[in-house]
């Protein structure tokens, strides 16, 4: 090696020096040195050379861009880690006039752009025609591994863990060496165990000739992976098993290894089964809560008021469009726009609902089937309005970061944040609705009008006003469902139609007029659907659920929780 040591230190460790005084710091700095040595392959480039590498990134050829990335990593330039990370996170731009690479530094505030080489804020950012550097998958893969190697030396244990996961199972002796060195200085317990797993995986993947000398170590590695839920563990065990079994004559040590591998795989599969069941249940519950949320507004307009509200789906659609509109109005506050959209969507749908009730539905009380016809007409009208106003194309609603991604417990089990939030949201809406209906004066009046309109009016309840409020409430809740659905599916003119049939099924299955019934029905149908899906496939599962509903209604003609008493006959 012919590079001065100081270059390596500045390459990836310049921010480390301060940390060297703290515990473990010295060793980590040494690891940095080792890392830098691994990185170094080509000669230290001059600054001019480095700039020309950056220039390559703005080109068109993906092959030359990949080479440039490798060269940047190899150059050992102090700016290299920053540039690689920015490229991976697609924050790198090229300013064609000044021919400079710029990085968007998101974590240091809104819209700060720095020069890639100097790291200083720059005005060139506003130069016209700045272009984002276009990457392809191969480049992204390369960047990920380069960034992960540097990440092994990170101060943040989370980043170290992520780096180890990224490097786990790669057939590269250099990486194995790096991981072993990292283990020597690692102090965090969870990171250590992850490193040990990664090293064990590496040990299994090693060439048999190398490993043959140390059968004992290999056996230990196999045992270390027993019950490990990482995908790579299972892959490595499977791979070794096939290799050993294909051998003509097996030594006693190899026989012992085969036995150990079988046990390890069994242990893994046993643990995975449990998680799979949990996962299916979670899928079912989350689907169930989506059904409940979509149906619960209908449980009010249809269940409580007896209006066969075919425009219910369009109320959901309006809620989703409200979410989109709010996002358009506050483009810089993506994280909070969904929260702002909640009251907006409720109000928009509720107002439209009140307008429908006052304009049409109120003339049709006592004629439920005619409400079906009129609201069907309204639904056509609303759909076409949306097509005319917003265009027939779908609208893109972005998900805030707190609703994206997963809460990863392990490789076998992870929960989507958006699903978790929707379950919470749905449960809150349900609780709030129950609260309003059973704990407030308004709720009392709503229930009174629903049960016996004439008697309620005789008691001084203003029936017409209550009708309008009830319909508005049901529609508003449908609007809330629209906010949630905008995070899961299309926001387009067909959104409502896609949910109307399911919603009716849920309400009727649960028992018209009973909110708890709607909750239980939605969850039952969701879980049943997801339990059937692995065996029957998505299409058949849905058909079976429908047949189940038809048969169930034969047994209980008034749903799960039939209404009792006189109002049941209405």
């Amino acid at each position, binding site marked *: 090696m012919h590079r001065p040591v100081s270059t390596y230190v500045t390459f990836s460790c310049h921010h480390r020096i301060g940390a060297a005084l703290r515990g473990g710091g010295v060793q980590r700095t040494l690891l940095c040195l080792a890392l830098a040595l691994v990185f170094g392959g080509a000669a230290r480039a001059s600054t001019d050379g480095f700039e020309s590498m950056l220039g390559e990134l703005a080109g068109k050829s*993906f092959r030359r861009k990949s080479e440039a990335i490798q060269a940047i990593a190899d150059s050992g330039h102090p700016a290299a880690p920053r540039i690689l990370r920015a490229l991976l996170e*697609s924050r790198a731009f090229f300013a064609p006039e000044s021919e400079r690479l710029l990085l968007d530094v998101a974590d240091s505030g809104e819209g700060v752009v720095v020069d890639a080489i100097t790291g200083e804020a720059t005005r060139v950012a506003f130069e016209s025609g700045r272009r*984002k550097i*276009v990457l*392809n*998958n*191969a480049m*992204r*893969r390369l960047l*990920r591994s380069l960034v992960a190697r540097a990440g092994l030396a990170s101060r943040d244990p989370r980043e170290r863990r992520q780096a180890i996961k990224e490097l786990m*199972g790669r057939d590269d002796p250099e990486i194995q060496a790096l991981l072993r060195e990292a283990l020597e200085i690692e102090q965090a317990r969870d990171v250590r165990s992850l490193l040990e797993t990664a090293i064990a995986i590496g040990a299994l993947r090693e060439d048999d000739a190398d490993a043959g000398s140390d059968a004992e170590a290999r056996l230990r590695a196999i045992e270390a992976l027993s019950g490990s839920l990482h*995908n*790579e563990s*299972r*892959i490595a065990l*499977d*791979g070794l098993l096939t290799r050993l079994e294909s051998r003509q004559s097996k030594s006693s040590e190899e026989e012992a290894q085969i036995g150990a591998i079988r046990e390890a795989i069994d242990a893994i599969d046993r643990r995975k089964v449990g998680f799979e069941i949990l*996962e*299916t249940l979670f*899928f079912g519950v*989350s*689907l169930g809560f*989506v059904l409940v949320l979509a149906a619960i507004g209908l449980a009010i307009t249809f269940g409580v008021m007896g209006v066969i509200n075919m425009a219910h789906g369009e109320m959901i659609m309006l809620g989703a469009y409200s979410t989109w509109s709010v996002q358009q109005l506050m483009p810089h506050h993506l994280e909070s726009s969904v929260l702002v959209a909640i009251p907006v969507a409720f109000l928009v749908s509720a107002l439209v609902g009140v307008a429908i009730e006052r304009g049409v539905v109120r003339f049709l009380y006592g004629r439920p089937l005619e409400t079906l016809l009129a609201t069907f007409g309204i639904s056509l009208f609303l*759909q*076409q309005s949306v*097509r005319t106003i917003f*265009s*027939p*194309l*779908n*609208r*893109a*609603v*972005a*998900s805030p970061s707190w609703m*994206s*991604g*997963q809460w*990863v417990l392990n*490789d076998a089990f*992870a929960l*989507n944040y*958006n*699903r978790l939030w929707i379950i919470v949201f749905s449960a809150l809406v349900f609780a709030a609705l129950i609260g309003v209906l059973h704990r407030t004066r308004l709720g009392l009046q709503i229930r009174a009008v629903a049960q016996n309109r004439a008697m309620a009016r005789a008691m001084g309840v203003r029936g017409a006003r209550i009708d309008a409020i009830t319909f508005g409430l049901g529609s508003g809740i449908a609007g809330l469902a629209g906010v949630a659905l905008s995070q*899961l*599916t*299309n*926001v*387009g*003119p*067909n959104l409502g139609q*896609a949910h109307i049939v399911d919603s009716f099924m849920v309400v009727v299955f649960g028992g018209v007029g009973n909110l708890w019934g709607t909750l239980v029905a939605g969850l039952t149908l969701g879980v049943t*659907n*997801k339990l059937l*899906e*692995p065996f029957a*496939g*998505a*299409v058949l599962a*849905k058909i079976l659920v429908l047949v189940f509903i038809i048969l169930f209604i034969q047994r209980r003609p008034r749903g799960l929780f039939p209404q009792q008493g006189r109002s049941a006959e209405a």
Partner: protein
Amino acid sequence: MKKRRLETMLAAILCSIAISAAAAAEEPIKVGVLHSLSGTMAISETTLKDTVLMMVEQQNAKGGLLGRKLEAVVVDPASDWPLFAEKARQLLEKDRVAVVFGCWTSVSRKSVLPVFEELDGLLFYPVQYEGEESSKNVFYTGAAPNQQAIPAVEYLMDEIGVERWVLAGTDYVYPRTTNKILEAFLKSKGVKEADIMINYTPFGHSDWQSIVSDIKKFGSAGKKTAVVSTINGDANVPFYKELGNQGVSAEDIPVVAFSVGEEELSGIDTKPLVGHLAAWNYFQSVDAPVNAAFIEKWHAFIGSPKRVTNDPMEATYIGFNMWVEAVKAAGTTDPSAVQKAIIGVEVPNLSGGRSTMLANHHITKPVLIGEIQEDGQFATVWETDGLVPGDAWSDYLPESKVIEADWTSKLDCGNYNTRTKKCSGQNY
């Protein structure tokens, strides 16, 4: 009573048709537009209606055709398949259009096909489809499977090194046929049964949790895995959202889609999709002067610089220009003359090359593979060396490889069976 009034009205319509037919000679050439403007397919088809209207306007600005102006006749078949047949008949019989641009779904094309064959009309069909058809009266300017699916799989296999395949599709004829073809193709390349997972979902499927989780498990067996998606329209948004949320990144398990273009992406939050692939014959991002000019005109016509262009629009563009050239060559809009004149017509496509109408009524096209970018556009990562001629009858299906289509005087048949030497299934 109402009944009688109805009949008077019908009679009135019929009279007006008769009168208008007599005066046809001096009138403009009518161009039928048969795309759904309401119902489930409006989402995709409305744009194509606008494209045809733009092309008509441009042609008129150039002085029309054969000295006559063009006039677009727009009807709404409302995503209702029997209504497609009815509207096609209305366009051909009542409005006497010279040509029709229309249809998106295969079922709508199948529905109007007998009408076009009976009344000898011309239909330009601008969408990628499953093949297995070549009608005398239909011109297929979208991609056949060998112009989209097969090159995409070849790319994944040779360039990315994919060894394990998920064929995921919506349960209808296009995915079924395409997956049949791909399965046969993959097996011919030595891929084992155990390394192919096939999954079908209903239209508009919105809960992808289990399927994405299965794909993830299938892809974690240590071999490079890719998903070939023939998932249709509305089901894509929740599918990609679920992929993004479950952390299936394009570097690990790339998804190559045949039905997701710029317009579909404009309705999706593209952040989690970056790097996933699509195979088309055109991308808006293609760097060609003719494309830049087209995009500019489109933005001016539609009045919004945000609107994107996509592959079916390009196919409409090519089809329209081919028809114009054929009419010029034939000197008449008479369908049978145009049918003869159009074979061999070559017009510029939007990716900088020239496409030719083949004897089997399909066209030659380049195949591009693009990766989705954050701005909803595609970056072309691979393209075929030259143009790929569209193959109506797939060579990978046992019953279909013996069939040939040639509408020149050589065979004059869309389904000529080379084994039995017979031309079967013709309706005229």
